[in-house]
């Protein structure tokens, strides 16, 4: 996915890169990791271009979404290989520390071909952490993890973030980002949707207009009752379906049932028209 006109700066701490699938999150992370060349503009890591800069990998750790583990290696061998390729003075100690951080000690001598996706994910993180990088880049790190692993990874990333490292991770799940990141960058369709404090962006998301489609025994009578409400901004008809737009999701959902009863109509169908994450992001981009 091509990305356009995106500028931001990452500070120490945890930043979430949020966007639907195919929004360009991986493209951005790969550019940061020096695995894609920007056709315009530049990506700087610690003040140096990330493109064609192998020395940079001494300071960053990358956990790609794609499988990068050797099935014939154990997690221990994998972390140790990473430590040796980084030419660390005590590779065994570094590998053991990284394995302990991801809590993979019990299975560390088993071949990775027998691991679950979550275990391989943790092995990848151990290999990326082995040289204690200043910057950690994780592409969809929660994919394939169970709730316990997710909690454990959250705790680990929070500790790393609190210790002054710069951590950036991508996710298409709002709750993942909400749990972990203070700052968030929203990407949609290869463009920057929003960037800044997560709570502010979350407020924008919840205060956006919501649309519902309604089918009832008497749409016109129901529409007449709805247009009086201050939180209803638009009512439109399309054959036997009515679309209602509201600025207050809570007030609308609380009042719609009593309103239908008092109007004396029979409800046949009521469903949100734009509750997908994509539509939330599209709203942010349009603002």
């Amino acid at each position, binding site marked *: 996915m091509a990305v356009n006109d995106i500028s931001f700066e990452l500070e120490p701490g945890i930043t979430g890169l949020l966007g639907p699938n195919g929004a360009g999150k991986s493209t951005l992370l790969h550019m940061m990791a020096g695995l*894609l060349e920007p056709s315009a503009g530049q990506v700087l890591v610690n003040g140096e271009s990330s493109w064609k800069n192998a020395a940079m990998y*001494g300071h960053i750790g990358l956990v790609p979404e794609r*499988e*990068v*583990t*050797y099935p014939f290696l154990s997690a221990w061998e994998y972390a140790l290989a990473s430590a040796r390729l980084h030419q660390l003075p005590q590779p065994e100690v570094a590998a053991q520390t990284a394995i302990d951080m991801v809590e993979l000690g019990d299975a560390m001598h088993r071949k990775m071909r027998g691991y679950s996706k979550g275990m391989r994910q943790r092995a990848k993180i151990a290999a990326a952490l082995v040289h204690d990088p200043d910057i950690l880049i994780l592409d969809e790190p929660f994919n394939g993890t169970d709730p316990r692993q997710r909690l454990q990874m959250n705790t680990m990333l929070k500790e790393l973030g609190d210790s002054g490292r710069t951590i950036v991770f991508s996710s298409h799940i709002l709750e993942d980002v909400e749990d972990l990141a203070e700052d968030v960058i929203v990407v949609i369709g290869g463009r920057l949707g929003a960037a800044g404090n997560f709570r502010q962006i979350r407020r924008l998301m919840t205060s956006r207009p919501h649309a519902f489609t309604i089918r009832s025994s008497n749409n016109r009578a129901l529409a007449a009752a709805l247009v009086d409400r201050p939180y209803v901004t638009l009512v439109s008809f399309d054959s036997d379906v009515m679309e209602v737009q509201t600025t207050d999701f809570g007030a609308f959902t609380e009042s719609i049932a009593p309103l239908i009863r008092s109007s004396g109509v029979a409800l046949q169908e009521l469903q949100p028209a734009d509750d997908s994450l994509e539509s939330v992001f599209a709203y942010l981009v349009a603002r």
Partner: protein
Amino acid sequence: MNNVLISLTARQLLGRRRTLVIGLLLALPILIAVIYRFSDEAGSGEATGEFALGLVSVMIFTLLLPLVALVFGTASLGAEIEDGTAVFLLTKPIERWRIIAIKIGVASVAAALFVVPTTMATTWIIHESPTADGLMLGLGLGALVASVLYCAAFVALSAVTSRALIFGLIYVFVWETFATRIFDSLRWVSIREYAHGWSDAVISINDKGVFYDPHLGVTTAIVGTMVVLATACAGGTRALTRFEIGE
């Protein structure tokens, strides 16, 4: 660092199924040599030398050796790029020339370990005294040079394109097998001809038969060898430096 790269590449290359298939393929010329040895056709001196040269030239140098090198050369780096594990290596502070050099080295050693003994054993079985006229040593040397050069070319090719296997097959079976026979001047750009040039410097048989037909002298072969190695290392390093991850 080098040891880790060598070990990872070797373990990746020498999978059980791959080595078994290659081992079985390379048993074929040995089997033919054994059948020839115990047949009425088996003679002595130049006649057997001619047969050895023909069998090794057609079956090993033209068919099996390039195939084995193609398998190891493209698997050494191309398979890692394909399955994503190359990212593990490329996100380490390692000079790209070192990765290319080690990939070429390991693939070459793996190919040579299979092909050179097969070549020498085939010659030894056919010929009564293969060392007398430099036959076994010359063909073994040619197989070694060809293993290294083909692997270098195919490793570099797999750094440049994801279709290295197809381009490799086209080079071996269209360029080297047909094009060089139609246009003599193309032999100057043929790894097989460079290998024959090295072999021919050692072999002292007068009648070499119709199948073994070297055209380049040893000096040209040495220069060609250096050019292939330098081009493969430089081209592979450049491609790896500019490596971009796929979607």
